[in-house]
């Protein structure tokens, strides 16, 4: 019951008026970010980090706001799936399958409402799961030594490509690039300059926030220009909402199942939100058997993937908060936020920064209620904003990215750096080299090297310590499975997901 006490304290933090205000603002911005195609959750959170800094927010307030943005983005993704048949973000892909047909039948408002409720329930279930699981995992993680941590970081990279990942070698390559960039600067424990080439700006290393904003925001602009997607697409009009309790009750079991599946795939390394929504959709189709009209606008076909991806979003916070190892792009960006606030993520956070951790968890619960309230009556506002064509939107987003980075240091050197990362990010995307491992490498590089050092100091230079304990061996084995499994089952799973995708 220790947890209950912490959680109550957390509510005490999250319910403070200014924190509540920032949570509301975050929820609104998040929904918007999720809804707008071309502005994914990781990208959106990344752009907001420098702004949260320059506002001089206290750590818990900044985190509460960005957690609300994160949760909101998962809600928002569904809006463009339903109305435009374009997923606002990757996990919302499955929502297109029944959401768009439902909207075409003149039931857009119902599809939006049901998906909002499903998102809410999915997220709620997963947040409860998070509250139960996270403290236990954090306690367990306290037994990790330096060698285990090193193995855990390797595991994180190995599973990052996900089971559906195409080419695991490209994931490794991307991770190596990120880690290499992270070694630039003065080595913290020996004071030796590494790869600075005498440039003063490089002494402190490469600021990962600049890299993240460049890789995501600037490369997105280039991709949009290339695809000439500036004008946007035609949108379905939203009808007047007619929804009764029976409609909600009929999707309830589906939603609960989706939420649980989502949570599990969020926690597990290598699964994530996209797979969570895919599994809950296909499983629900099997469970319902001949009673379903999936693919033709079945409300349950809207509820299942939405509950799944929102559940996964909260589930993904478990490894991020307890181990300091994020499993997705967006949680990686949240980790960037933690590191820049000088909070060391990992099991110690639950004891040293208990108020922050539990404040964030409580904020997640409150944020969900706020999001439900925002999303049902205010859906019209989001729909209006969604009709802003990307040709106006993306340049403005680019400006905000510039302003954010410029306001951190008032240095134009950083802006050139950001543009360079943007062009690099575009090239990597064209080569199908994933960007998330690059970012994770940048973030985890210093910690990974530190743990390697500690482990070697303990063993007096004996490398076998890295696989010297049962736990470490287990982690290495999972890491190897994480690399090999996608090669075997990846093609099958990808083909199935592709077959389901709308054109």
């Amino acid at each position, binding site marked *: 019951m220790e947890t209950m006490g912490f959680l109550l304290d957390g509510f005490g933090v999250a319910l403070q008026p200014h924190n509540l205000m920032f949570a509301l603002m975050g929820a609104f911005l998040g929904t918007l970010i999720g809804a707008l195609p071309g502005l994914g959750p990781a990208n959106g959170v990344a752009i907001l980090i420098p702004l949260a800094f320059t506002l001089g927010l206290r750590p818990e307030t900044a985190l509460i706001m960005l957690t609300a943005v994160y949760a909101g983005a998962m809600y928002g993704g569904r809006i463009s799936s339903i109305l435009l048949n374009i997923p606002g973000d990757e996990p919302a892909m499955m929502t297109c399958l029944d959401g768009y047909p439902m909207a075409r039948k003149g039931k857009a408002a119902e599809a939006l409402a049901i998906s909002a409720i499903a998102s809410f329930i999915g997220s709620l279930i997963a947040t409860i799961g998070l509250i139960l699981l996270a403290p236990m995992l954090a306690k367990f993680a306290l037994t990790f030594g330096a060698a285990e941590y090193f193995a855990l970081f390797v595991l994180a990279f190995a599973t990052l490509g996900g089971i559906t990942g195409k080419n695991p070698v490209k994931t490794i*390559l991307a991770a190596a690039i990120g880690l*290499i960039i992270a070694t630039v600067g003065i080595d913290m424990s020996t004071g030796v300059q590494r790869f600075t080439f005498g440039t003063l700006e490089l002494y402190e290393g490469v600021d990962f926030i600049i890299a993240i904003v460049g890789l995501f925001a600037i490369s997105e602009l280039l991709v949009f220009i290339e695809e000439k997607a500036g004008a946007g697409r035609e949108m379905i009009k939203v009808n007047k909402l007619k929804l009764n309790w029976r409609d909600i009750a009929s999707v309830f079991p589906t939603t609960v199942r989706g939420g649980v599946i989502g949570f599990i795939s969020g926690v597990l390394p290598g699964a994530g939100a996209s797979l969570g929504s895919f599994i809950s959709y296909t499983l629900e189709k099997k469970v319902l058997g001949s009673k379903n009209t999936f693919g033709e606008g079945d409300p349950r076909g809207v509820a299942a993937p939405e509950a799944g991806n929102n559940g996964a979003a909260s589930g993904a916070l478990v490894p991020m908060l307890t181990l300091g190892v994020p499993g997705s792009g967006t949680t990686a960006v949240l980790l960037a936020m933690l590191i820049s606030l000088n909070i060391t993520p990992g099991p110690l956070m639950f004891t040293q920064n208990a108020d922050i951790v539990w404040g964030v968890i409580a904020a997640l619960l409150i944020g969900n209620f706020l999001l439900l309230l925002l999303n049902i009556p205010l859906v019209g506002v989001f729909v209006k904003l969604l009709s802003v064509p990307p040709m106006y939107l993306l340049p403005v987003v680019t400006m905000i990215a510039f302003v954010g980075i410029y306001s951190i240091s008032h240095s134009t050197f950083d*802006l050139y750096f950001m543009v360079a990362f943007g062009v690099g990010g575009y090239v990597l995307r064209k080569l*199908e080299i994933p960007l998330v491992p690059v970012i994770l490498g940048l973030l985890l590089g210093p910690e990974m090297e530190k743990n390697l050092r500690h482990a*070697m100091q303990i063993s007096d230079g004996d490398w076998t310590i890295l696989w010297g304990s049962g736990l470490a061996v287990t982690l290495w084995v999972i890491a190897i499975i994480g690399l090999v499994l996608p090669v075997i089952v990846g093609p099958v799973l990808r083909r199935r997901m592709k077959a389901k995708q709308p054109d």
Partner: protein
Amino acid sequence: MRLNDRIFGLLMFVLAVAYGWGAQQFPEPFSGTEAVGPETFPTILAVVLALSSVYLMVRPDPNNGWPLGRTAVEMLISIAVLIVYTLVLEPLGFIVATTLMVGTLCWRMGAPVVRSYITGLIGGIVVFLLFNYVLELSLPWGVLSFLEVH
């Protein structure tokens, strides 16, 4: 053709060798030699990068087409716009530079010219006022500094 991955693999291999060689040139730290020196971790990374880039050269994926002709020109223009924006941000000031940057990008992405630059101007003014007066962070005035109230 699978040239993209081959060329990128080659570039990364060169990087890995240069990086790995660079790591061996670090001066010995004052604290003396330890099991893990400043060069150990970079050396491991250089090996990992070299191996994966060799794999990329040996077994490349099919190419994605690069933008050609007009699209390529448009993309180069937009990158140039971003670089020029950074260059003129401080001398011209935030509002003027932003109007030019956002306006040009909107226009090149297909919006009508006048509406593009109006979007840029309004966006620039709103963000400028928000940052300088509400958030009290200073964005540069540049050529409009005569408007600044002391």
